[in-house]
Each structure stands twice: as structure tokens, then as C-alpha cells.
């Protein structure tokens, strides 16, 4: 908790400084608006922006649909299933407004995403959209299982070719060799590309710079048609310790002329749900635009970006994003600098970089990991995390934390039930030390309960 205190003090100092800078920028921005463009008011009224894939010549919409967050409902047995009807409506709206890239994977949504996406897309002509899916051979990477998984994707998606096929979640050479090279799966996929059943072959990357460099060297051998990377205005220069700055990733791809697909432009929603003063800061600069629109404009700005993925559960998010990208107004130098300052402010918040991707789930001991981490983040952003019993507003923060915690996570799935077995850690694409974070939260809650902060 001492750590927290320092963070806060430091944070206040920084934000005071930033406030001054911001004030100055505000005036500048005001001047500019009068004379030059009015970026956002014009957005959303035009046509969707498209980028061209250098290899295949595909004209891909800058907004891609991430299919890992389709709306869910409970079926008669009380199980979570995809709400197909709502999903269909989302897909219809997206296609109608120019979105033509749909990214899914066999493991998404407890294995339901491919089928749901395929069902929704089947209702449109096959040449009106591109399908991306992945080889998620994490738990069993034998050749048989991998190829079976590949074939199952065709069946689930009801198609006879896949436009963009990815080796799912590669962190470095070791995993790459183990899962794709040694078992001959990659050779098989290269043949499939030749046969036209895979139109573009690439991989999605989560890892450090060393692993990245090694993977880039394989380009001469395999000719990657595209690579999927995590890019947003925080990860641009401030990626977490075990990841790589997006600035470097994009630069390396540009060097080789490989187009990039962007994942996590919102850091799993964390760049849409920011602390109040950061949201105010963004709104002050652009009162009409949503907080999320800044992140999307940022992700679309680099020229080498082919498509920016967003996992949109709600129609409002889809409409907002379509608006931001119809057409995309790239960020100018001033705006980029402004976002970099914002990124530094956000980084000061001790939130946990969980994107709610649920790769860690299900925990064999029943812990609801993302719910615990996200609840903590929510409280950090809302300023409901107290550092000391003597803090002003401690009582209120304590009650808010404990009551909302019980609401967010059932008792048997809370942090104190985590046995720190570490099974989840390997699954986390953000490389979060999950047991450590959970223990930290557990300790904080224990201190709140005992009033011994």
C-alpha cells in the first residue's frame, strides 16, 4: 500500500504539470478550429475508409469486426450462449455501413464464436466480406489435432476458403517452432495457401522484442501476408515489461512492407473507460467525439495498418466506431503529442492490464479472474481505492469497494479462493502475473475488512 501512496503523490504532481500544458494546448486547439478543419463534426457522414492489402489487393475496411465479444444470453439450461438474433443485426449493420473484415477464432466465446459468425455472415454474399480465423492449437499442438481444428473452422464458418488465417498468439520462436514448425503444420498451411484455401497467411503476436525480431527473420522463408499486433496509444511507447512497444512493431512491419491488423486498439476497453479527469481532458479537446474515438483514430493513423479490430458487443459501439472511420481523419502531429501525454497520465494509474479476453478462463478452481481484476480497475479509475484508514473518504471507499466486490464476483469465486497454482499465467496474452495480482487484491480486501490499511 506504500507503493500506492507514492503513486498517487507522483500522479498528482504529474497531472498538475499536465494540466498546465493542457491549458496551453486548449487555447491552441481553439484557434485552429476556427481557421482550419473541424475534424469530428465531419466524421461519420462520409464513406468508410478502406486500405489496400499490398499482396492480394483486397480492399479492407479500416474497421474490422472482432468476433470474441458477441452478445450472450442464457439458454434454458442456464448456460451462456451467443444471442444469434442480435449478432445477426450487428453483422447486418456493419456490412451495410462498409465493414468487410470479420475476425474470429475456434476458442472464442467458449468455442461458439466461429459458428455464430459463420451463421450471421452466411446471409450475405461471400464476396462481400473477408473472414479471418486462427489456429488456436494451445492445449494440444499435435499435427492431427491442429489440422482437425483447421478443417473444423471451414465447417463452422460454412465456407470453402478463408481470407486471412493466423497462427494464434505467438510469443516467440520457441512457441512458434513447437506449435507449427516441428509438427509440420506450417508446411501444411503453406500448401493450403498455394491451393487458395488460405488467401493470406499470418500470425498474431504477443511477446517481447527479442521474440519479435526472430519471428521477423522468418519472413524471407514464409512470406507473411500480414501480422496482427497489439497497437494503441498507450502501448505505442509504453508497452508492459514483457510486451513490445507498438511503435517498434509497426516500424519493423513497414520496413518489410507487411500490412498490420490491429488488435486491442482500446486495450480491452480500458481506453474507453478512463478516469474522469482523463475523459474530461479528451472531451475538452473534442466535445463531440467519444473517448473511444481517440483510440480508434490513433490506431488507424499509421499508413501500414490494414484494419483495426474492435470487439463490439453493443450497437452503440458499432455505430460510434463506424462514425469515427467514415471516413477516418488521421491524427495530426499536435494530436499525437496530446495523446502521448494522455498515455503517460493513464500509465500513472495502477490498473492491471487485463483486457477481459478470458484466455485464462475457466480457472480449474472456479475463480472468476477477469471479474476480480476488472472490478479492481473499475475502483481504481473511480478513485474508490483507499490507501489509508485516515484517508478522506476512506469509509465511503471501503463500503463501495466491499459492496460492489460482492456484487461483481460471487463469494466462492473471489480472490481469497485463489490457490496460486499458476495454471492461468501461461494463458494470459498480456503476460499478467495473475496469481500475484490476485494476491495483491486479496490482501487489499483483507485490510479493508480488518480496517488495518
Amino acid at each position: 500500500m506504500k507503493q500506492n501512496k507514492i503513486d498517487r503523490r507522483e500522479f498528482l504532481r504529474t497531472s498538475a504539470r499536465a494540466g498546465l500544458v493542457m491549458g496551453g494546448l486548449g487555447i491552441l486547439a481553439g484557434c485552429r478550429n476556427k481557421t482550419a478543419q473541424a475534424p469530428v463534426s465531419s466524421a461519420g457522414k462520409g464513406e468508410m475508409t478502406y486500405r489496400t492489402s499490398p499482396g492480394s489487393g483486397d480492399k479492407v475496411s479500416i474497421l474490422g469486426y472482432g468476433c470474441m465479444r458477441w452478445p450472450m444470453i442464457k439458454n434454458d439450461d442456464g448456460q451462456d450462449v451467443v444471442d444469434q438474433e442480435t449478432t445477426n443485426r450487428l453483422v447486418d449493420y456493419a456490412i451495410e455501413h462498409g465493414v468487410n473484415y470479420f475476425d474470429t477464432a475456434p476458442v472464442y466465446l467458449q468455442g461458439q464464436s466461429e459458428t455464430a459468425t459463420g451463421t450471421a455472415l452466411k446471409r450475405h454474399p461471400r464476396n462481400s466480406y473477408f473472414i479471418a480465423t486462427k489456429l488456436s492449437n494451445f492445449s494440444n499442438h499435435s499435427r492431427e489435432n491442429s489440422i482437425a481444428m483447421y478443417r473444423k473452422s471451414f465447417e463452422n464458418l460454412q465456407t470453402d476458403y478463408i481470407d486471412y488465417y493466423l497462427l494464434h498468439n505467438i510469443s516467440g520462436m520457441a512457441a512458434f517452432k513447437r506449435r507449427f514448425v516441428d509438427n509440420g503444420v506450417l508446411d501444411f498451411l503453406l500448401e493450403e495457401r498455394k491451393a487458395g484455401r488460405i488467401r493470406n497467411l499470418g500470425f498474431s503476436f504477443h511477446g517481447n522484442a527479442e521474440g519479435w525480431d526472430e519471428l521477423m527473420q522468418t519472413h524471407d522463408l514464409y512470406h507473411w501476408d500480414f501480422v496482427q499486433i497489439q497497437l494503441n496509444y498507450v502501448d505505442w511507447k509504453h508497452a508492459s515489461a514483457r510486451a513490445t512497444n507498438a511503435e517498434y512493431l509497426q516500424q519493423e512491419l513497414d520496413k518489410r512492407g507487411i500490412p498490420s491488423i490491429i488488435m486491442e486498439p482500446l486495450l480491452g476497453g480500458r481506453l474507453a473507460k478512463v478516469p474522469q479527469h482523463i475523459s474530461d481532458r479528451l472531451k475538452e479537446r473534442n466535445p463531440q467525439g467519444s473517448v473511444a474515438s481517440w483510440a480508434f483514430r490513433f490506431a488507424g493513423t499509421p499508413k501500414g495498418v490494414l484494419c483495426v479490430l474492435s470487439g463490439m458487443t453493443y450497437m452503440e459501439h458499432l455505430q460510434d466506431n463506424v462514425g469515427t472511420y467514415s471516413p477516418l481523419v488521421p491524427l495530426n502531429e499536435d494530436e499525437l503529442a496530446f495523446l502521448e501525454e494522455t498515455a503517460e497520465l493513464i500509465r500513472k494509474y495502477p490498473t492491471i492490464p487485463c483486457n477481459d479476453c478470458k484466455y485464462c478462463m475457466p480457472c480449474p478452481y472456479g475463480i472468476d479472474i477477469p471479474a476480480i481484476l476488472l472490478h479492481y480497475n473499475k475502483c481504481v479509475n473511480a478513485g474508490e481505492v483507499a490507501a489509508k484508514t485516515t484517508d478522506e473518504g476512506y469509509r465511503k471507499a471501503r463500503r463501495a469497494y466491499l459492496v460492489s466486490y460482492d456484487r461483481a464476483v460471487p463469494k466462492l469465486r473471489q480472490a481469497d479462493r485463489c490457490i496460486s497454482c499458476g495454471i492461468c499465467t501461461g494463458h494470459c496474452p498480456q503476460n499478467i502475473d495473475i496469481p500475484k495480482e490476485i494476491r495483491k487484491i486479496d490482501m487489499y480486501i483483507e485490510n479493508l475488512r480488518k480496517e488495518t490499511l
Partner: protein
Amino acid sequence: MLRKFRIILAAAFFTGVTLLFLDFTGALHSWLGWMAKVQLLPAILAVNVVTVAVLLLLTLLFGRIYCSVICPLGIMQDVVSWIHGRTKKKNRYRFTYSPAKKWLRYTLLVLFVVALFAGAHSIAVLIAPYSAYGRIAANLLAPVYRLGNNFFAWIAERAGSYAFYSVEVWIKSFTTFIIAVVTFVIIAVLAWKNGRTWCNTICPVGTFLGFFSRYSLFAPVIDKAKCTSCGLCSRQCKASCINPKEHEIDYSRCVVCMDCLESCREGAIHYAFRRKREEKASDTGRAVSNDGRRAFLTSAVIAGASTALKAQEMKVDGGLAEIARAEKPQRSAPIVPAGSISLKNFNDHCTSCQLCVSACPNNVLRPSSSLMTLMQPEMSYERGYCRPECTRCSEVCPAGAIRPISKEEKSSVQIGHAVIDLNLCVVNTDEVSCGNCSRHCPSGAISMVRRNPDQEATLMIPVVDEEKCIGCGACENLCPARPFTAIHVEGHEIHKEI
């Protein structure tokens, strides 16, 4: 006037005592806790000399006011009886005088005292009034109250408010629940038909106080000169103790409700100093039917839908593994809260009123189902554990079964000790590292040691230092092994300080 005064006081007491059983936040006890502590039987068992003396003095002065104002079971019967009276005017005059059933009264009192001394509290508390009411409030009212609270919590959650939070509602002991239902039905039926039959034939506290109220200084007296022997007072006397023919009142059974005072059209009954037998100024008695309005609010029931998702066979993203409920282990000795001193002290004083069971915020205390300690509270850790910051049961106990104890004292009282069964431990069954028991032990009694001492890199298994363990059950509650946890607490007969 006196009657109104009695009704107001009774309503206040009844509401207060009931709220003590309903409130789960612990906020009310600091204000109203004394209402439980002035109940006669708990006060006697707690050897609370001052309270007992004051209660006896009160009875010697004014009669069985205790039964009309302080005893929640008595007031509950008045409420039931009053409701029956409201149904038809005729029903308000449904009572008749009946002679005291002395044999039954005295026999039950003697049996009650014998049972108490013989340690058979579970039998005695069946007819003890405060225990009976506590049983009814804790088992029948509290769940409804909590469901109501959960409904508000449900709304609050949607409104983004933290004013209400939801609490678990569960039947803590099936046996006790059934006994509570039977108790309520019997007493309610008796009250519906004949008012205070229970108080004047069965209740041992009533019989005991009758010995004193017989000689009370103040009492309702009938002015024979004015009395026309109409019998109206007798027909409104829920204690059936006015003999209109003889112009006599059986003061051992009269609960001084003052109903008769206002029923007499001739103004012939006064609440007065008995010894003088003189008439005070003769006011005209007014027969005013008093409208006491009580509204009982029952709240909507929200069925808490529990979600159970099956564990995934193949590793895909998301979903929740099913968690089996922990089974209650066999304990060689029951665990009772810190402050109980010993099982014997606990058993000797406990009146099974369920106040501590209602107050326990951690779902640890529940009524025992074993024969000798039937309905007396005991601890178990399937739903929660005895949290270090909580001393609520010791604060609320009116009978001295759980003596007041501070958090600091509690942290050094050994109420039991943990026992490990390594065959059930997930380190051995699942080959994973765990140590959750050790991490959460508030007294540092559990350490992790190498499973195989010859190897450097080996999984760690928990061991308990019995001398440091206080028996709080954090380890048992947080142990992931199912259906039986790998670590459980055995109770101690005599609590000791470490």
C-alpha cells in the same frame, strides 16, 4: 390512559427486540442491545443480579408488567389476539374467567428448573418465552426480512447505490426451523382462541413472576360498590383472571394490561394502591376502543438464481468451472465462539435464543441439531469463517454464554485447532502448488514445508502448529479440496489463551 401507555411501551419493546433479531449490520445492538439483556431468563443465567432484582421489584410494585411490556412472546400473543378481536366485535368479548390450573403451572415450573439444573437446556428452552420468541424471529421473520433487504439490494445495484447489500438467506438448522414453526403455530393458536393461555398455564417465567405479582403494591382493583357484576371486564380479560361474580382478580395471572379499566362502563375498576382499599376520586370510565395500528410489511421474494456452469472439457476461452459445496466435517467436539470460556459454561448459560445466530455476519453460527445441545448455537465453516475483526456474538449474548471479548483478546483465544488430512490436500491430489490455508491464517499457525525433504525443488505441503492455532476456520473455509476440505477445525472443551 394507562392502557395506551402500556401499548406504546409494549410496541416499542416488541419492535426493538424483534429488530435485534432482524438487523444483520450490527448497528442496532449498541442502541437496543439492552432490550435483550433485561429478559428475565437470560439475566438469571447471566447471574445479572441487578437486572433480576429490578425486574422482581418492578413486579412487586406494579404486577406482571414484564409480561405485558418487556416479554416479546407476550406481546406477540397480544397482537395475535388483537387481530382476532378486530375480525368481529363479538370476538373482542370472547374471553371467560377460568380458575388457575395450578397443578399444571407448578409442575411445569418445577420441571423447567430441574431441567435447567440437570443441564438439559434443550428441553427447558422449549417453553422459555424469550427463547421461543427468538426462535420464531430468527427462523421465520429474519429470512423474510433478509429477502426484503435483498430486493432493495437488487434495486440499489441497478441504481448504482451502495445503500443496501445482499445477504445470504439459508435454513441454518432444519430441526430448529421445524421447532420454530411448531412453537409459533401452537402459541398463535392458543392466543387466537384464548389470549394469554400460554402465559398463565405453561410459561415458567409467568408462573415464577406470579409468585411476586400476587403481592404487588399496585394492581387493578374492583370497586364493589360500583360494580354491577355485568361481567364485561371478564369477557375482555385475555388473561381470564377476573372473576366477576366474586369481584376478584387473580393477581398471579393478571398481566396488568389495563384493558379491564377501560372496559368497565361503571368506572368500577381502577389501577390503584391495593393495601388502602380506598377509593380515589371516581372518574367516569370511558370505554374507548383504541385503535392501535400496526402494519406488517412483507417484502417481495427474490429467488437468488445461482448459476452453475459446467467445466469445459476442451480448453476454450471463458466460462466458469463448477464449484462443489464443501461438506460439513465430523467434529469430535463442537466449536463455540471465543468468550464462551468452555463448552460447559456455554451450555449452562445459553438460552438458545438464536440472537447470536442472527447476528453472525459470516454465516458461521447455526443452531445445533444434536440432542443434548439442541438449538444451542455451534460454529461451522462451510459458508464462512470466524473473522478476526468480528466480536458480534459476544456483544449480543444476553445470557453470559458468550462473554464480551475484545478483538485483541479474541485473537489469542484458542477455541479449537486445525487438523490436516494430507490425502485430501490438492497439492497431493492435483499436483499443484497451493498454500491458501497458510496464506490466510491470521495467527501464522500454518507453515508450508517441503513435501519431500530430500529434494530442493518440491511442492510444499501445509503443517499446523497446534499451539498457535486459534481455531478460526479461515484455513478450512478457504481450502479448495472438495467435497471434504483437507483441513478442518476440532473444537476444544475448554478455551485457552495462547
